[in-house]
């Protein structure tokens, strides 16, 4: 079991699209995947099940006392399961603020789950929910759109990861890679790619996800791009990304145990 957190504090960079389609790609490589929708917007939940803000959800696990296995859903994708999110998660940051060990609640809830991969889709912020996802993850995958604005704030995300690593003793939490999304053959995209190549030398993934309308349509039809339009440019890119991620971050054969994996 390997947990990958899809994170970027900037919104609209393709976090949910990457979470959903990477999960579907890994599933097509015979991996059993659990997607955890940590975002109160619950877009991954909608994209994988067609449901909007279902209850009970992850909120009842993090803020309430519900066991995580009671909210694991089968999704529209074969071999992909989901812990749904709902709108109440948007208040969870405040509700969890005063609780001791608040950053560890998701890691504890996931303990013992037996999948090959857990994909954690996070909100566009660096609050308690994202901290929970980072604490529960073995690796971080950062989607970044190839635009000028996307370079702003990247340092903040890295600093947060560094801080968490120190505070929570997550010495093995690493950035698995940075994946470029919304790729277009434009000068701006090319220049941004060049900057990222220098900044993330060796960690910038080869796969570049193109801007592709089919990705949006697939969300609307409540399925992954690999079910909706596997031959589209977006479909081919996400299949390539799944292969690259599987090679880069192999699935750990043991059930999920964040404490064990960090050597505690």
């Amino acid at each position, binding site marked *: 079991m390997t947990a990958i957190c899809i994170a970027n504090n900037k919104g609209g960079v393709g976090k949910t699209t990457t979470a959903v389609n990477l999960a579907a790609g890994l599933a097509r490589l015979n991996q059993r995947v659990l997607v955890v929708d940590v975002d109160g917007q619950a877009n991954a939940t909608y994209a994988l099940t067609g449901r*909007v803000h279902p209850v009970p959800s992850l909120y009842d696990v993090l803020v309430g006392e519900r066991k995580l296995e009671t909210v694991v859903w*089968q999704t529209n994708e074969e071999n992909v399961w989901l812990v749904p999110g709902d709108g109440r998660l948007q208040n969870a940051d405040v509700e969890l603020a005063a609780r001791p060990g608040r950053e560890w609640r998701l890691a504890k809830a996931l303990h013992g789950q037996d999948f090959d991969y857990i994909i954690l889709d996070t909100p566009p912020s660096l609050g308690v929910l994202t901290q929970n996802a980072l604490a529960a993850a073995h690796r971080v995958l950062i989607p970044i759109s190839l635009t000028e604005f996307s370079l702003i704030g990247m340092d903040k995300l890295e600093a947060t990861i560094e801080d968490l690593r120190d505070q929570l003793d997550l010495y093995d939490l690493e950035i698995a890679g940075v994946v470029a999304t919304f790729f277009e053959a434009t000068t701006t995209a090319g220049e941004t790619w060049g900057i990222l190549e220098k900044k993330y030398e060796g960690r910038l993934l080869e796969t570049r996800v193109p801007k592709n309308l089919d990705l949006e349509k*697939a969300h609307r039809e409540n399925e992954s791009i690999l079910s909706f339009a596997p031959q589209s440019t977006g479909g081919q890119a996400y299949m390539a990304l799944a292969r690259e991620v599987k090679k880069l971050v192999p699935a750990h054969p043991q059930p999920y145990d964040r404490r064990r994996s960090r050597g505690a």
Partner: protein
Amino acid sequence: MSQRTRSRTTAAAPAARKPPPASVDPPVIRPTEPREPKKPHEPAASPVSAPPLAPEALARTLRAVAAELERDPALARRVAAALAASPDQPDTLSLAPDAPTSEQRGDDQPNPKSPRAARVFTPRLITGASPMLGPGVPDPFALHARLGMDGLRAALEELRLGSLRAIVREHGLDPGGKVSRANDAARLREVILAAVATAP
């Protein structure tokens, strides 16, 4: 602040303007001038209550309209089309309370003949599938037992391609996978309904 500005900002409200003197020139119609927005569902003013136009004013207005029609052929065509329409024909743009709603008119269906059809975007409120479907992939056989065939049909109408494909996959309703591969929600619904109807 200059004296002029101060006097403009601090002076008492100006006295009511005198009506402009009658002019012999036709009034200029400015289509770009901001218009007061129409209030929805406000009944159109009854023509009976409108004050009658003096013959001179009516002639002046018609001359202005004629001048504008000569200047703007597109406007002339629209006016000609409106005049050619039957007086019995209902005004579909009326905002009167008894006018049909956009749903009744089918406004959310873009007219394929319109050159603007391809650009029309009608946002829809996404409410998601009904909670009565329960978590995970819906079970059409259980839904049929609970809701009957009409209820199942209505429930399937709410579902999008992904959920329909998942139902077909989970219940082995398309062994060859031919229907599942096509992005055809209607056909998937047919397959599910047929399987439920023939189930023992």
